[in-house]
């Protein structure tokens, strides 16, 4: 059967996720299509990272089904950016060694690795940093190396777990701008967990709001126009991005 370009890359059907016997999420259903920029929002401990882990197969699904279109997004074309790198400062490593660890699980010729590395570092604004000591990088630069470690896989789908927390506002904008550019160019589909509402409201094409063990999903306009959203995130009303959306909702009602 011919596959439509807009068929979902990732589809969740009635998914339930738990840690041991402790249920975290239930009845999660949504689909992510190519070129979409998803933000996952929710209070602390609501299950945002759990949702990502379920999608990536890092946590067993207790019910329902997570299906990823393996023909368009094989495992090696999925990039993951954690909140923090776990690499210990007491170990010696260079940006080159750290970033190329992202190639684990990818079929890349040894001779092509420098090209992939240079491409990924250029995307994150660290061109020429190959031989720098990882321990000598600033926090912001380390976060960018985490992104480069995901990008070196040339991903079709990239999953990010609050990678901008701790970055200054300008660095956050640069980080997102770069992702948005790649998404617009049709190279990337993004699933981004964040606490930063203004950023999400400004950049998202779609939102997933995690709250009370449930996930409400939809296009940004639809989610932001809902009363439930503003009840859950009243602080967003104060944000520059939130005000017009709230005004839109008031006009609609």
């Amino acid at each position: 059967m011919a596959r439509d370009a807009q068929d979902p890359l990732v589809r969740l059907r009635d998914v339930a996720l738990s840690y041991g016997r402790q249920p975290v999420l239930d009845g999660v259903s949504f689909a992510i299509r190519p070129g979409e920029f998803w933000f996952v929002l929710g209070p602390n401990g609501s299950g945002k990272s759990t949702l990502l882990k379920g999608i990536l197969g890092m946590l067993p699904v207790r019910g329902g089904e997570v299906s990823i279109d393996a023909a368009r997004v094989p495992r090696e074309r999925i990039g993951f950016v954690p909140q923090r790198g776990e690499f210990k400062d007491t170990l010696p490593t260079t940006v080159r060694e750290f970033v190329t660890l992202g190639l684990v699980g990818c079929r890349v010729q040894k001779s092509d690795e420098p090209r992939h590395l240079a491409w990924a570092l250029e995307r994150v604004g660290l061109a020429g940093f190959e031989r720098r000591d990882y321990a000598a990088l600033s926090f912001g630069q380390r976060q960018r190396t985490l992104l480069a470690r995901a990008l070196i896989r040339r991903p079709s789908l990239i999953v990010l777990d609050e990678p901008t927390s701790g970055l200054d506002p300008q660095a956050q904008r640069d980080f997102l701008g770069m992702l948005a550019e790649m998404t617009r160019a049709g190279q990337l589909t993004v699933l981004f967990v964040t606490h930063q509402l203004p950023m999400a409201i400004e950049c998202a094409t779609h939102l997933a709001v995690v709250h009370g063990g449930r996930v409400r999903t939809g296009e940004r306009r639809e989610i932001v126009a809902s009363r439930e959203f503003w009840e859950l995130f009243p602080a967003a009303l104060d944000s520059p991005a939130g005000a017009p959306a709230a005004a839109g909702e008031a006009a609609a009602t």
Partner: protein
Amino acid sequence: MSDMIREFIDSWFLFSNSYIAGWCIAAMLALIGVIVVARDQIFIGAAISQSATCGIALGLWLANAFALAEDSWWTSRAFHGVMSGTFAVLAALLTSFAGRSWRETHESITGWLFLFTGGASILLVAHTPHGLEEVHRLMASSIIGATMEDTIVLASALALSAFVLWRSYRPVLLVVTDPEMARANGLRVPLWEAGIAIGIGLLIGLALRVSGMTYTFACLVLPALIAKHMCREIRGVFLAAPPLALVASFLAFLLAHRYDAPPAQVTVVLLSLALAAVWLVRFARGMLSR
């Protein structure tokens, strides 16, 4: 110096197996020691070595309790090797996986294992003829007495571990340094961790029977700790640690022969002094760069 080398060469006929076995152990443990150091689980080497000693002590106890003939397989070096390896593998698996589900730290499990197997080793052989002596020898370390078979087995183990690490260096490094990322990249992390634990356990078990605890523990962690300060990448640490261990053990064996000192202990002291010197240089460089 030339006298020292000549005397050493003269002793080759008598001690060649011990020397070669000692060098194989040094290089092999230095190689896998990089994994232990990268995980920041230094003391695991002592706990696994102690557990392997406990395995041998249990073997000695079994032979005594069931009055097994002195020339039977149950009293042979091969049986002690099996016991040592089995206990070392079990200890490595225990320290890798236990404690997670009951919220205990890795250090606590390692400390418990070290103390339990240390006490049990002595208790098991307390009333065994020669048993206590053998366990004390293992704890104190002596590489004198290695056989040709030991040397062949250890050289094969060194070649095999070097080949496996060369082939799977990157996934091993990712699993060791960032298991969550490894999981996200599609690796079956528990399987990799089990494989790494079994490998470390087997190699320590093999080494311990020949060289004893102190030499085994020292060769496992000291060369990697020294190399860590001399290299800019972990790949370099993997490449530098085995030659460092070889050079140190070669010099130590020369000195030990010249001054009639136990070679294992001379190696341990040499490596420890080298690490202290590296720390000192690091400290001095830090002070100067301020």
